């Protein structure tokens, strides 16, 4: 598949702050591509560089294979939803939404049809005559989405477009956006710091940290095979358990020891052993590989119970069924799904592959 948007070695500094450091992105045509990262990672800056609002210090931006680094925003034919909405204060919701159509000098009738379509899609019919100052954050956010969805651009750039919606509406809009993406077949570049959004909507996820891409892949790849320690602990909730260990023929930590399931290490290797809470089980069969520890805390969450277990001075969180009942201080054994464990180099923090 060809690339809709490519960022080649893009760097951007604001004075002392290096917002983007040699950023590489390749966004396939027609994909739903999510840029996931914590606050300040450079997500907005990436979108602004791609949209042509910010000139990169070095590097190039390619749109459909053509160098667009010098092109002005209007020429790029991209629609963007701003994190701050950027609705025009002196225009009504309807005027805001139809602004791109008026820029293209569409006929009044065409504009009205498009407006109606978008208003229905986003459930904003009753807001159309209001000014931005008369709307709530979530309402403005939907108008901002409408201003993008009203036209058929080369690609949609969306900067955290659902953050201000209530949970019900957010879940609904998530499904809606995925559906819109399918029906339009356009490229979506979607920025979020919400991993649930990333996991549920994305074809591809790029995890961004401090202006560099840490890992690109399908959501399941990011989750199942994090490229380094940082991605491992950023993605997933509760975060991945990481235990200091020495890996060789065995993986040994303070007060525990497990067989090496095939990680390629030579000699005694200082490492971090990673296992997600759902890959640990307190329901132990005799032959299973397991860790012994003591219950430190129990956190019932309704659909599951998180059990905090202390193993050799370090704590791990284990996802248990909601019916599980443990008392604090109780001695337990946690079975480990050795197919789904991770090992990270203690120095470089990169994942160590299995042989």
């Amino acid at each position: 598949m060809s690339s809709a948007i490519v960022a080649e070695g893009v760097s951007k500094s604001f004075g002392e702050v290096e917002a983007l450091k040699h950023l590489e992105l390749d966004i396939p045509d027609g994909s739903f591509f999510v840029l996931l990262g914590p606050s300040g990672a450079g997500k907005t800056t990436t979108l602004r560089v791609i949209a042509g609002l910010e000139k990169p210090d070095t590097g190039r931006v390619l749109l459909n294979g053509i160098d667009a680094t010098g092109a002005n925003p209007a020429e790029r034919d991209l629609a963007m939803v701003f994190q701050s909405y950027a609705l025009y204060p002196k225009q009504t919701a309807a005027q805001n939404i139809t602004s791109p159509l008026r820029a293209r000098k569409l006929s009044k009738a065409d504009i009205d049809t498009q407006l109606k379509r978008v208003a229905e899609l986003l459930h904003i019919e009753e807001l159309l005559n209001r000014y931005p100052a008369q709307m709530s954050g979530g309402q403005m956010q939907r108008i901002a989405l409408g201003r993008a969805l009203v036209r058929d651009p080369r690609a949609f750039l969306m900067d955290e477009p659902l953050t201000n919606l209530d949970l019900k509406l957010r879940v609904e809009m998530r499904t809606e956006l995925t559906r819109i993406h399918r029906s339009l077949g356009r490229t979506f570049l979607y920025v979020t710091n919400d991993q649930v959004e990333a996991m549920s909507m994305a074809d591809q996820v790029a995890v961004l940290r401090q202006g560099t891409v840490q890992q690109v892949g399908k959501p399941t790849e990011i989750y199942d095979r994090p490229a380094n320690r940082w991605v491992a602990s950023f993605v997933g909730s509760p975060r991945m358990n990481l235990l200091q260990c020495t890996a060789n023929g065995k993986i040994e930590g303070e007060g525990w020891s497990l067989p090496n399931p095939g990680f390629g290490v030579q000699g005694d290797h200082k490492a971090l052993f990673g296992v997600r809470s759902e890959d640990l089980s307190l329901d132990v069969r005799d032959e299973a590989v397991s860790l012994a520890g003591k219950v430190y805390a129990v956190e019932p969450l309704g659909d599951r119970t998180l059990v905090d277990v202390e193993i050799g001075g370090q704590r791990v969180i284990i996802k248990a069924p909601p019916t599980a009942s443990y008392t604090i201080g109780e001695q337990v054994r946690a079975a480990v799904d050795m197919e789904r464990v991770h090992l990270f180099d203690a120095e470089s923090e990169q994942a160590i592959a299995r042989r």
Partner: protein
Amino acid sequence: MATHIQPEGLADKGIAGETVDPPVRRERKFGSGVEILLLTIFMVVMLFPVIWMLETALKETKDIYAVPAKVFSFSPTLDHFQNVFSSDSPVFKGFVNSVIVAGFSTLIATVLGVPAAWAYSRFTLKAKKDQLFFILSTRFMPPVVVVIPVFLMFRDLSLLDTRLGLVLVYAAFNLPFTIWMMKGFIDEVPAEYEEAAMLDGFSRFEAFWRVTMPLLIPGIAATAVFALIFSWNEFVFSIFLITDPDTRTAPSAIAGLIGGTTIDWGLVAASAMTFAVPVLVFAFLVRKHLVAGVTLGAVRR
């Protein structure tokens, strides 16, 4: 467990003791009598010259010279005001010229200054701060300092005794002020509005015109009024650069009434009052921005 830092008894009385009768109010009641008295004295002292002038403008000529002065017991007349606007009045032309000069110089300063301010607000320029300081520093100079060089230049360009000359000088003097004040207003408007419009498919200028401009109208109005008042009141350039009674502006025309053997004080006073009215009206219109204008830009949209 929460720790209470508030003193005993305050905690239950809501924010800032809303439920208690505010003690401040009683103090104010006591003070207000004295306050009003002091303010009245202050007002009379401040307004006395103005009141005196207004009276002079309304008195018949013989009453003006009456000794002791007739403060209340004179019969008011509008003769002097009539003279101001009569066709052979020496000051009426001055008013017309003032309107023309102030109007055009303000127009030029605004048309040039607003886009310049926008550029200074939105773009990264080399040594932007230095440029802005330089622009502002031209305002530090008292007009008297530059009037001689301007006079010499205007003589060579034969702009002396022309309204065009004054329009240019006033526009030049108002431009830095317009740029600074408008930059303050434009800084307050997020650049993202224009950026969104550019992504909608508008050019940079269209984006400014359609999205930012409507938000700037009050700011432009306030700035223009300041420029108008400056041009209207300006005296030094006017008196030096124009001697022709046909093209001089009101301030020098009024000044021209004084001198000679007999002075028609009634006409002087009536002209001065007439001259002050537009300034009062405009100052009233922009009173909210008068203070803000000093802090340049700390103005809410």
